[in-house]
Every structure is written in structure tokens, then in C-alpha cells.
């Protein structure tokens, strides 16, 4: 009895030893900053960049529509930029899905050694610096860049195409950068796909489209949804890609936030914009969790197995 109690105490002491320092660190330097940002988004911006410690809801009012005073006015441009960012992020998700889906099938059907090689090759870009990979696309898409030189060299175009500093350039670069994020979750569910089900479906007379829609798509859905979320989140809040490849012409919500902090010096308004991004992502995740739990209810056999 005595032994048991002392072991319980020892375990508690070990647990405390493991958790105490990380907990204090994260409470102060992670939860602390997030709380302060939330508080800031409800404070009044000072005249010269600081804040006035008074409750103020017009930071959100300027974005969402109820600010109508001398200094703070509702401006639909913020909502427009926000929606445009959502749109760019959504297009990035869809394109990277289209690009990765067939490739995931291809890699999953390769012999073991080749498979490992290509899986290594797809993870390698993740280790390559983001800024280096974006720089490559600046070199390719510039008016004097590789693509234009090549196209003019073979006489396909007479003068350089204006690709850089457009939505297209931003989307291309985001798709390129986030391909590994989309590929790996997709691959995980494609690899689990049972080929005999596809054969059975074909044998029973289903067309290829029917097989895809009824068998392949539902069974790879977890990978599709997972990859989409992992790509959507960093795309939505991105400001590096639009600032390098979108120039002054493509402004995403991330650029707007950056401006509030580093040039406009309206920190409360910037915080409110950042909270909008967080809110959008949390809504998306809530929707995903609800969807996933409904799925689990519909498939009791799977639930039991788990």
C-alpha cells in the first residue's frame, strides 16, 4: 500500500517536472500575446501610433459596416480585399488539388524503391527555403524573365507577357510552394485505396466516371479535405507571396495587416483584421469537425473498429 502511494506521488512529481516549464513558457509567450492582440483589437488607436486604453468597437466597424464617425468610417474596400484573399486561397487549393491528385496515384502505383525515391523528392522542397523557391518564380515570371525569354526565343510571342504582379503570378507561386502540403495527405489516403474495389466496380459494369465518383472520390475524401485545409490556411493569411509576386497590384489581407503594423501604425485596426482571419479559419475548422463527426456517425462499423 505504502509503495503504491509513493509511486503515485512520484508519478505526480514527474508529471509536474515535465510540464511546468513548458506550460509557463507557452502561457506567457504564446497565450499572452494572443490575448493582448484580442484586447488590442477592441482599443482605440492613438493619434501618433499608440493606443488609447478605452473600449472601441469601430476597428471592426470599419471592416464590417457600422463605423460612421469623423475619423473612422466603414470602407467596403476591406471586405473586398478579404473576400479576394479567400478567393485566391480557394483557387490555390483547387489548383494544387488538380495538380497533385493524379501524381499521388502515379507514385502510389510505383514499385517500392522508386516510390520511396519520389516520396523523398516531394518532401525535399519542404526543406528548401521558401524565399529561395519564391525567388525562382520571380526570375521565371519577370518581363525579362525565363518564361518570356523562352517564349520570345521560339517566336511564340512578340513582346513580354505581363504575368508578374497579377493574381495569376500569386496563384502560381502559392500552388508551387504548397504542393508538398497537398500531396502528402492526398498520398496517404490514395495509398490506402483498395484497387480490387475499382476492379469490382468496373466488372459490375460501372463507367470510369461512375467508379471515380462512387468509389475513388469518397474513399480519398479524407486526404482531399485534409490537404485542402492545410493549403488554405497559409494561403489565406499570406503576405510574402503577394508582396514578391503581386507587387502593389495584388493586395491580400496579409499585406493589409502588415501595412497596419509597419507603415500605417494602426495596431488596433491591424489586430482586428488579424482576428477576422482567425475567425474565418476557426469557422472552417468547425465546419470540418462537424462534417467529420457526421461521417463517423454514418459509418458505425468504422467507429467500432477505431
Amino acid at each position, binding site marked *: 500500500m505504502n509503495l503504491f502511494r509513493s509511486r503515485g506521488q512520484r508519478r505526480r512529481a514527474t*508529471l509536474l517536472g515535465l*510540464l511546468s516549464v*513548458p506550460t509557463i513558457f507557452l502561457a506567457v509567450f*504564446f497565450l499572452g500575446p494572443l490575448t493582448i492582440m484580442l484586447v488590442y483589437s477592441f482599443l482605440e488607436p492613438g493619434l501618433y501610433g499608440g493606443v488609447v486604453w478605452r473600449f472601441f468597437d469601430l476597428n471592426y466597424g470599419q471592416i464590417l459596416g457600422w463605423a460612421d464617425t469623423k475619423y473612422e468610417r466603414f470602407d467596403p474596400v476591406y471586405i473586398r480585399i478579404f473576400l479576394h484573399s479567400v478567393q485566391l486561397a480557394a483557387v490555390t487549393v483547387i489548383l494544387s488539388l488538380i495538380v497533385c491528385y493524379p501524381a499521388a496515384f502515379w507514385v502510389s502505383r510505383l514499385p517500392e524503391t522508386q516510390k520511396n525515391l519520389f516520396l523523398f523528392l516531394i518532401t525535399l522542397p519542404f526543406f528548401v527555403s521558401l524565399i529561395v523557391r519564391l525567388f525562382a518564380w520571380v526570375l521565371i515570371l519577370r518581363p525579362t524573365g525565363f518564361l518570356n*525569354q523562352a517564349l520570345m526565343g521560339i517566336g511564340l510571342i512578340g513582346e513580354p507577357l505581363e504575368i508578374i504582379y497579377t493574381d495569376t503570378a500569386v496563384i502560381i507561386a502559392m500552388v508551387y510552394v504548397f*504542393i508538398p502540403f497537398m500531396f502528402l495527405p492526398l498520398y496517404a489516403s490514395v495509398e490506402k485505396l483498395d484497387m480490387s474495389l475499382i476492379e469490382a466496380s468496373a466488372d459490375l459494369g460501372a463507367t470510369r466516371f461512375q467508379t471515380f465518383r462512387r468509389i475513388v472520390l469518397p474513399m480519398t475524401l479524407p486526404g482531399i479535405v485534409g490537404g485542402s485545409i492545410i493549403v488554405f490556411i497559409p494561403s489565406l493569411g499570406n503576405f*510574402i507571396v503577394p508582396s514578391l509576386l503581386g507587387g502593389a497590384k495584388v493586395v491580400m489581407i496579409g499585406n493589409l*495587416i502588415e501595412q497596419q503594423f509597419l507603415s500605417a501604425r494602426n495596431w488596433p485596426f491591424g489586430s482586428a483584421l488579424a482576428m477576422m482571419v482567425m475567425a474565418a479559419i476557426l469557422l472552417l475548422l468547425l465546419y470540418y469537425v462537424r462534417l467529420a463527426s457526421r461521417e463517423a456517425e454514418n459509418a458505425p462499423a468504422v467507429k467500432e473498429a477505431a
Partner: protein
Amino acid sequence: MMTGRLLKLLRWVNGLSIYGYFFFAFIYAPILLIVVFSFNANPVNMMIWEGFTFDWYRTIFGLSNKLTESALYIESSDQLYSAVKNSLLVALITTAVSTVFGTAVAVAVARFRFRLQGFYRALMFLPMIMPDIVLGIALLIFFVSLGVKLSLLTIIIGHCTFLTSYVFVVVSARIADMDESLEEASADLGADGWTTFRRVTLPMILPGVIGGALLAFIISMDDLVITYFIAGVDSTTLPVFIYGMLRRGIKPEINAIATIMLLFSIVIASIGLYLRARKK
């Protein structure tokens, strides 16, 4: 009829592998382009081949003075060196701290039963779903409103807040396929918690810990967004330095810097792969 279907299938597979090669070409062509053109002698248009040169490498190592314009542009290689030094310092300290934190939390959550388990899982999940820019500005507001001067220390603190989660995830995955009974046996034989952890748990999860540390190191070296907000004037890291260079204009030396960084990444990735292969 059977052969007909087989042919169709073969054609489909062929089409798919052609696509597969295109896919990998799309991933690697831009990177190769940088490497090739880092040796291009043309100082005006980097994309028109004019001959082979090591000039850009010599410029960044401070060996060449003849390219005065370019030399002025980097201002001095000293800035570049100090950015590299800062990046390495930050990454090393961050890796050490976040590996210890992440491993400790992972072991605690997997091996102990306590009331706040769900809270810790959520806490470790949060940085993963948060866009970098949100954490970056939150840390900026936090440090500035507390009157903390932005420096390498603030960067290190910032990196540790989210890299702890990455280590946690990697180590947790490793613990998940580990046998718990060995630890119980150790405890039954009278070892205290610390001894069991050091002699039994740690050696078993070590591959996960190393994997997590490597990941933390790479992400810390590469982080641009969070560092961008919380770096002081004299504490620029390499990605922030290059970002600044790119915003001022494209110069051929960047090709050379990027190629060296590429080489570095491939070495680190290969070490990781080697360790993972040896584990099996």
C-alpha cells in the same frame, strides 16, 4: 476483349507516368534554374546565358572587388555573414529549447492521465492552424507593449512558441507505436520516474526526438514571416535579409546565395533521411 481492356489500362498508366514526370519537372525546374544561372556571367539580364563564371560566388565571399556596383548592393559581405550567423544561432538555441519542451509535453500527454490532457492537445494544435502573420503580430504587440527591445532573444522566444508544437507532433507519433509495458516494468523494478524516463523512455523515442529537432531546426532557419515582425534592426536573419534584397531589386548574387542555401537544405534533408533509414 480482355486484351482490349488491358491495352486501355496500359495506355492510362502510360499517360499517368508521363504526367508524373511533368509533375516532378514542375517542382524541380525552378530550383535547377537558380543553380544553373548562378554561374551565368551576364550581369544585366540573368536569364540570358553569356558564359560560365564564379564571380557571384566570389562577390558574396568578398573575394571580388571588380564588380563595384554589385559590391555596393550587398553593401558588404559582413551583413550577409552576420545574417547567417544570427540564423544559425537562433536555430540552434530554438531547436534545443523547443525539442526539450515538445518532448516533455508529448511524454506527459501520452504516458500520464491528468485532467488537462485535452487542453494540452488543443494548445499544441493551435500554432499549427494559426497563420504565421497572426502569431507574428501578436508577439510584436506583446514585446513592444511590455517594453522589451526586439533582438535575437525575441526571435528565439517567438520561434520556440510554435516549434514546440512541431516537435510535440513528431515525438507523439513515435510514442504512439511504442510499448508501454517496458516503462511499467522499469517502475515495477523500483526505478524512479526520472530514471525510467532517461534509461527506458528516452532511448526508445530518440529517433522521434531527433526527427523533431531536425524539423525544428529547418523551420527555424527558414522562418520569414514571424521573424520579420519581431526582428530588431540589428538582428536580421538570413531569410529576412534575402527578402529585403529581393524587395530592393534582383541581382545575380542572390542566385549564388540561394544555391548555397539549397545545398545546405539538401545536406540537412539527407541527414534526416539517413537517420530514418537507419532506424528501420
